[in-house]
């Protein structure tokens, strides 16, 4: 096995060639013969009753093919939510309808009212301007606390109120937690906001619908992280198209970060409209449209209380959160503040009693759903901030306080229902102290002081749950789908291989890393193996890529399918060498009979499978292709420790990131180069959240941060080089590769260390500041220093 190709190697990415030469095939790069273009007319008010939509003048404009309004979708299904949360009284959540085009009311700025299909995009836009829309504007409800007040304006008239659910976890612990907090030697309380973010993959969403009257087949090309999930949701729930008549293709996708998991109205529209006008129909989002139609992320308001005994052991934790759902329930929205958040509140610590309350709230804003980390960043941020605050209140070293409370024995059953299989939090903290050179901090602080700057150090740990998820478990918790994955390994006659995988690569480099696994197992060159993904007509099934699940779940399916290939090919080899298949060994692409010098090569066996002249046809079928579905036994639990050093300019309040270090435990690693890149990217986004990004609405529900002029994306000059390390490896015990997942860690682990560092800097300068909400912008820091 060439060591530069297998597990643990960092071969250069094969997908890079097409991306570096302009040959990528993103959805907007495709044009279908005869296609028409869609422009959506979107609401410019946050809340209103649609009195009249007059399309007559617009319909007569040049190039207009047809104009659709809500009436055209009156008999079409609602865009479904994928997770039914049961509240703490045992009642199902309130679940409003989510129409493709607004029915009667608009509920957020950007809610689509009508859609023009025309011969050209310009004609569609021009015609949309000629549609006359009469809307009776209603007061908007934007703030979550106001939305929960009795008598508040209701986002949905047919619901009782704006409360989606009131969730308690673990409800039976509630009284014990209250009592422990009451009786504790010390309680640290922190109120904070985990601000609303916009995922902002650089490729805006695109959808192209096609329909063939002759076959009755629909095709949707879309910018998706999970084409099978879109086929399932749109086919079964919205448009009523059976799977065999609906093909969903997600070709090269320019980043997702969660925002391209969900089934969106525009996908259903293009699929529906292509049949209605009997022409391919293409929609390309502008960035401005993306800000008001892509699902947003985070937006939690939280109060957390950490109780400690007289020896500084954590004894109880209670958190109260309001989670913004926006105006409708996006695909995974309801699971994010609950099962992806509450179950992580133990963090890396052996706190015996935990109670989490979450109230999910409807407001007149864009729907909120999973964004890189999805619930886990919110859990980590509050926990790691409150621990830091506690350390300061108690006058103890924040690292020592964490170390003292680490979980050290595994498996560990948390009081919030999950069981960590492996981990070594001491080792990752030791590694962090080394790579971050924490012992040199004081001298760097002195250097900064000499330049008039305040230097601060912030450290935090994180744990996350990846590899979602055991289907029977999530089924009990309300998921409306299974969360296994699938792979087919197709070995061709000459020994080359196509692996069809349910995972989708939109930056993660699966086309390079997945073949490394198969190459390693078979002992053949990785160049003989290609990955096929992103097309429901080519791959067996799959739940897609999110929650750092690709390798842990789909990779495991690929391993299982490859094991079946190996088992069958050993039988063929045994026949060719007239030996027993129990004696056959496979190494470096050669099958040998143990203890003899007899051997046949991989290619001899694969050829025999397809040219079965000398073949045990009475025992096994010809051909060499196997499929496996893999349902994980547990989540995986990557963990780590991060450190950030900042400098604060006391004149302006500007924070600069001087050093950033990350020590992660991802279990086994397939491609270290790609893993490093994933961590870098996550840290970049985490720094963006900590210092820059903020999605802001005014009281009327107008989106103020609606373009890159107002929404501050992290740029190259705002981040440093990062020191990352993943040499601490406690392999996952329940998947065949021992892998845990690395896609979200950086975004989960980085925001608290940045804010902890800023607080440290300010306190070192004598400023009595205990918290600043993100983004920690110059104006907020300046205000905190000058309060």
């Amino acid at each position: 096995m060439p060591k530069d190709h297998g597990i643990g190697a960092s071969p250069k990415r094969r997908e890079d060639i097409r991306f570096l030469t302009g040959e990528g095939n993103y959805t907007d790069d495709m044009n279908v013969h005869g296609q028409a273009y869609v422009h959506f007319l979107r609401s410019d008010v946050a809340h209103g009753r649609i009195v009249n939509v007059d399309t007559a003048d617009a319909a007569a404009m040049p190039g207009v093919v047809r104009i659709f309004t809500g009436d055209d979708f009156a008999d079409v299904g609602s865009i479904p939510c994928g997770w039914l949360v049961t509240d703490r009284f045992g009642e199902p959540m309130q679940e409003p309808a989510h129409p493709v085009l607004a029915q009667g009311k608009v509920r957020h700025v950007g809610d689509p009212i009508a859609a023009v299909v025309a011969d050209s995009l310009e004609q569609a836009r021009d015609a949309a301007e000629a549609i006359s829309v009469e809307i009776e504007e209603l007061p908007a409800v934007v703030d979550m606390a106001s939305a929960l007040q009795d008598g508040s304006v209701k986002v949905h008239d047919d619901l009782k109120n704006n409360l989606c659910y009131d969730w308690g976890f673990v409800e039976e612990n509630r009284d014990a937690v209250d009592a422990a907090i009451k009786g504790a030697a010390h309680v640290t309380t922190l109120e904070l906001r985990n601000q609303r973010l916009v995922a902002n993959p650089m490729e805006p969403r695109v959808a192209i619908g096609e329909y063939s009257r002759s076959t009755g087949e629909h095709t949707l090309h879309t910018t998706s992280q999970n084409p099978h999930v879109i086929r399932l949701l749109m086919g079964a729930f919205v448009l009523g198209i059976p799977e065999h008549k609906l093909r969903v293709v997600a070709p090269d996708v320019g980043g997702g970060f969660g925002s391209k998991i969900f089934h969106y109205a525009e996908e259903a529209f293009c699929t529906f409209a292509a049949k209605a006008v009997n022409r391919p129909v293409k929609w390309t989002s502008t960035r401005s449209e993306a800000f008001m139609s892509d699902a947003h992320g985070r937006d939690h308001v939280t109060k957390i209380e950490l109780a400690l005994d007289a020896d500084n052991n954590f004894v109880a934790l209670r958190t109260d959160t309001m989670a913004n759902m926006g105006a409708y329930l996006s695909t995974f929205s309801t699971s994010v503040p609950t099962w992806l958040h509450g179950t992580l509140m133990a963090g890396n610590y052996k706190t015996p009693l935990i109670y989490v309350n979450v109230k999910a709230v409807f407001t007149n804003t864009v729907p909120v759903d999973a964004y890189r980390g999805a619930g886990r960043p919110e859990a980590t941020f509050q926990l790691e901030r409150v621990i830091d605050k506690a350390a300061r209140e108690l006058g103890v070293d924040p690292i020592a306080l964490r170390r003292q409370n680490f979980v050290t024995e595994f498996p560990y059953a948390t009081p919030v229902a999950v069981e960590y299989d492996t981990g070594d939090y001491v080792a990752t903290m030791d590694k962090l102290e080394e790579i971050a050179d924490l012992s040199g901090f004081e001298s760097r602080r002195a250097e900064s002081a000499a330049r008039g700057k305040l230097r601060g150090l912030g450290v935090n740990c994180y744990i996350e749950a990846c590899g979602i998820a055991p289907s029977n478990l999530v089924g009990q918790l309300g998921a409306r789908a299974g969360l296994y994955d699938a792979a087919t390994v197709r070995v061709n006659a000459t020994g080359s291989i196509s692996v069809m995988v349910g995972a989708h690569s939109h930056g993660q480099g699966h086309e390079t890393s997945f073949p490394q696994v198969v190459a390693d197992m078979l002992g053949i060159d990785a160049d003989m193996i290609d990955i096929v993904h992103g097309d429901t007509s080519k791959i067996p099934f799959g739940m897609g890529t999110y929650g750092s699940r690709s390798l842990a779940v789909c990779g495991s399916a690929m391993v299982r399918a490859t094991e079946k290939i190996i088992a069958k090919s050993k039988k063929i080899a045994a026949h060719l060498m007239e030996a027993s298949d129990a004696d056959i060994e496979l190494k470096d692409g050669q099958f040998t009979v143990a203890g003899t010098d007899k051997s046949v090569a991989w290619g001899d066996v694969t050829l025999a499978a397809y040219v079965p002249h000398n073949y045990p046809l009475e025992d096994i079928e010809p051909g060499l292709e196997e499929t496996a579905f893999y349902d994980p036994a547990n989540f995986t639990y990557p963990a780590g420790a991060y450190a950030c050093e900042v400098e604060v300019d006391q004149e302006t309040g500007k924070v600069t990131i001087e050093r950033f270090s990350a020590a992660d435990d991802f279990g086994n690693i397939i491609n270290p180069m790609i893993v490093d890149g994933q961590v870098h990217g996550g840290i970049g986004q985490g720094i963006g959240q900590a210092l820059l990004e903020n999605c802001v609405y005014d009281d009327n529900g107008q989106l103020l941060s609606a373009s890159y002029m107002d929404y501050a994306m992290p740029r190259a000059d705002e981040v440093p080089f990062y020191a990352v390390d993943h040499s601490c490896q406690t392999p996952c015990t329940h998947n065949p590769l021992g892998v845990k997942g690395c896609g979200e860690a950086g975004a989960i682990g980085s925001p608290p260390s940045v804010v902890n560092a800023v607080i440290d800097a300010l306190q070192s300068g004598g400023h009595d500041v205990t918290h600043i909400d993100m983004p920690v912008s110059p104006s907020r820091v300046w205000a905190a220093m000058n309060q």
Partner: protein
Amino acid sequence: MSQVTMTVNGKTATGDVEGRTLLSQFLRENLNLTGTHVGCDTSQCGACVVHVDGKAVKSCTMLALEAEGADVATIEGQAAPDGTLNTIQQAFQDHHGLQCGFCTPGMVMSAAALLKDNPKPTETEVRDYLEGNICRCTGYHNIVKAIMAASGQDVSSIAAE
């Protein structure tokens, strides 16, 4: 509709465009050069950077008609005719300077313009120069590293690839 003619990647290109057609649109739709990407509508992201008469330009900020007679270079013209990547492209692959690839054409074109003016930029100079190019995937670490490597500097002391 008016006719516009320019040189693109060394070849003459002609097309009919509206007055409002952007250069980025002309390249993508008329010439099918879809390597030039459009990531925003406020000239903020840099995914659309091409060279016009040797200068890096956001092609979404320029009308196609304004490029009449110009010499335009896009990502499609950067590799050698036999497909061999140029130094910057190769450095991006070597140092994992791209993930989803969407920002990449703009990054490569911006980097080429930077290195033409400043053959050995410092880290700070690279970061400052890229201020107009957003990447959401890489956290910029490997992009900056790749550009410094492409300039012939030793980047081995910069942490992990």
